[in-house]
């Protein structure tokens, strides 16, 4: 990727655009035409979770490119489990805090943080370290209010309608911050699967048609930005873990607008390919994003 010349890049970018139907992506592309280089994905590595998060977003053009003054921003981490940060069951609290901080720096009026948890919400919010970390920055962290789920027309292949969390759709911008983990049915859970945290109702049923459902959901919710936390990844006994032997420290954060591309690159962290994941393959086929990372412009930063 480093040695890709301009001609090759334009060619691959054209192919990428052809396969895309995400308006956000096109928007950012159009507004970027004047810029010297367009980046699809940024990968930052380093010892400080906060610094690499900032570096990855900066490599994508900085938070100001995604968040405008006065915006209400939803930041959606994965904090579904009663686990501590070392156990890598939830998004790293330092990564989440840095994103919140950057949103405020970019002029966000309000930053909301929530997740519909699997374990008890109070324990998940506290034990993940996210509640304390973002409260200190002035974010609105709230427990999911069951009254705020509304049946929405997802119009997907498996998911026709589903109760989803209205606060997500009322926000001006949505930033998805998943963590990369093992999952026995999805194989890996990263950004696309993180949307289960805004599903109401009996979401356990979607496992019967998981791949289709995840693609349906990801096509319906279009995040402004996706930041994949791979500071620690969970390689087995996911998605909640609990055994430190299953945790691998990678000190990595991946940022991108295309969630399919983020998940596809995320798979390589586990020694897999995007095509090993049913939902990534399906999303690529449906034109939701790009699975083939060879076609992407990836910027790598080491700090």
């Amino acid at each position, binding site marked *: 990727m480093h040695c890709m010349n301009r001609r090759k890049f334009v060619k691959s970018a054209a192919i990428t655009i052809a396969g895309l139907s995400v308006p956000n992506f096109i928007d950012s592309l159009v507004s970027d035409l004047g810029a010297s280089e367009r980046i699809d994905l940024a990968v930052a590595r380093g010892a400080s979770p906060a610094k690499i998060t900032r570096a990855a977003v900066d490599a994508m053009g900085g938070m100001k490119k995604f968040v405008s003054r006065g915006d209400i921003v939803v930041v959606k981490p994965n904090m579904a489990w009663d686990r501590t940060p070392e156990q890598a069951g939830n998004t790293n609290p330092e990564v989440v805090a840095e994103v919140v901080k950057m949103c405020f720096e970019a002029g966000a009026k309000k930053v909301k943080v929530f997740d519909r948890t699997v374990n008890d919400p109070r324990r998940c919010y506290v034990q993940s370290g996210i509640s304390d970390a973002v409260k200190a920055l002035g974010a609105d962290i709230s427990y999911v209010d069951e009254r705020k789920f509304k049946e929405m027309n997802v119009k997907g292949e498996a998911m026709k309608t589903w109760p989803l969390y209205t606060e997500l759709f009322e926000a001006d911008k949505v930033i998805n911050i998943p963590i990369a983990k093992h999952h026995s049915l999805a194989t890996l859970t990263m950004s696309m699967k993180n949307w289960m945290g805004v599903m109401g109702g009996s979401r356990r049923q979607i*496992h019967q048609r998981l791949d289709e459902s995840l693609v349906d959901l990801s096509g319906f919710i279009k995040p402004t930005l996706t930041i994949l936390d791979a500071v620690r990844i969970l390689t087995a006994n996911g998605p909640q873990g609990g*055994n430190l032997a299953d945790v691998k420290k990678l000190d990595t954060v991946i940022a991108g607008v295309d969630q399919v591309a983020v998940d596809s690159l995320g798979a390589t962290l586990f020694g897999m390919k995007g095509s090993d994941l049913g939902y990534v393959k399906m999303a690529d086929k449906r034109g939701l994003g790009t699975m083939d990372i060879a076609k992407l412009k990836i910027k790598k930063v080491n700090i």
Partner: protein
Amino acid sequence: MQNLRRTSQGIFLLLFLFLFIQTESKGRDALGYPAKIFLDFDPLIFITTIFSAHAVQKAFYFSLITIAITLIFGRAFCGWVCPLGTLNNIVGAMKKGRPKTEDRNLYRVKYYVLIFLIISSLFSLQLAGIVDPLSLLIRSLSVSVYPLFSYGIRAVFDAIYSADIKGVTALSESVYSILKKSVLSFQQPFYNQSLFIGALFFLILGLNLVEKRFWCKYLCPLGALLGILSRFSIFKRSVSEGCTSCGACANVCQGNASPDKKEEWRDTECYYCWNCDDVCPQNAVSFGFSGKKAAASMDLGRRRVITSMASGVIAVPLLRATPLSKSEFINQRLIRPPGSLEEKEFLKRCVKCGECMKVCITNGLQPTLLEAGLEGIWSPLLIPKIGYCEFRCTLCGQVCPTGAIKKLNLEEKAKVKIGLAMIDKGRCLPYAHARPCIVCEEVCPTPKKAIWFEKAKVKDRNGKEFIVQQPRVDLELCIGCGICEAKCPVVDKPAIYVTSIGESRSKENRLLMEGY
């Protein structure tokens, strides 16, 4: 003096209610508040637990303070501290008219109750918690009154929210969020038997309309215990020569202490409320330290005492002569909280106060009816379908006043088995219906998952072959927390469910050959 007493009663009632509301997880490992401290100060619980279990919780030494105070000041606890006494006072205030002046011997009943409880506890039967006022109050509030209160408030605010009235809803929502942060529970609690336990509680309150502080005067065994202790107290009432026997004091006496009878004043029945002193037109009544015993003798009647003692003895075999006492007769549904002692020892300690049910983070701990025999009525059992046992939560052991549920640290908790999960292959989606589902495995909390998969080749009705992952339970690793049962998509009758077999606390209720 009346104002001072009322202030004291108010402070203790508010403290009690505050601690009650704080008996709820905030997401951290420790509760942060001494939720059970009122029970720690309760000498009835203290004494009966020593007798029944021959063991004592360190915190219980607080109750020696209550005993010491009673030995000095008499039954002041009833008049100045007891939250149930205060509630009785409040409800009693609604009863108009003078108290009946005829001398009721009914006041002796509470002593018979006390004798019954003490004797049966000597024979290892712990029933005191059923009628101990503090235990009774906490249980009634936890299981019935608070859920009712919470339900009512939520229903009102939910109605305003869904009506979406301009201006009003915004205001009501901000009030609601304040209530949620202060007096409302995190989630609406639901309990089995809330109607039954609540009815008994409201009956006790309602008896105040028959006679003020009916419970305290006639029934309360803690009042009886403190009454006996107050025989020895050095703080006594005296009436000076100025008394004209006008009887004003008899009308305001909260207990049944016959204050108008001067030398026949019953110190065992006096709450030291000071009403007689306040009301006396001659100012002839005074309380003070004195060595002399200027009080009526206590006559309970020898036959009645012997009868209550005999009842206490007979109750033991009567309650225990059930099939549940046979070691091989095990109730599969009796899943006890993690850290619970072996069943016999558990029952010797559990005072059915309901603290564990109040604090249970998933609402899974529920009061038993007959699952543990009549002896174990209202003791806690886990119903995973209502709420599972949260893997890293140890709150029930933290609030148990008598150590019936041991206080566990996180490492110990992770190893305690409260039962085992079994799969119903006839209902499980990958087994019975060849549909993918992994929810039980996904939510299984043990570090190495106790649910694993066997890949099976199955065919659909057109003969097309495909692979599904069929869950299996690793009996060594499963701790019986029941999250699999609680989250199973086969919601009406889960395809995986927990029964009590394999519980660490039992030697009989085991499945595996090897010990663990």
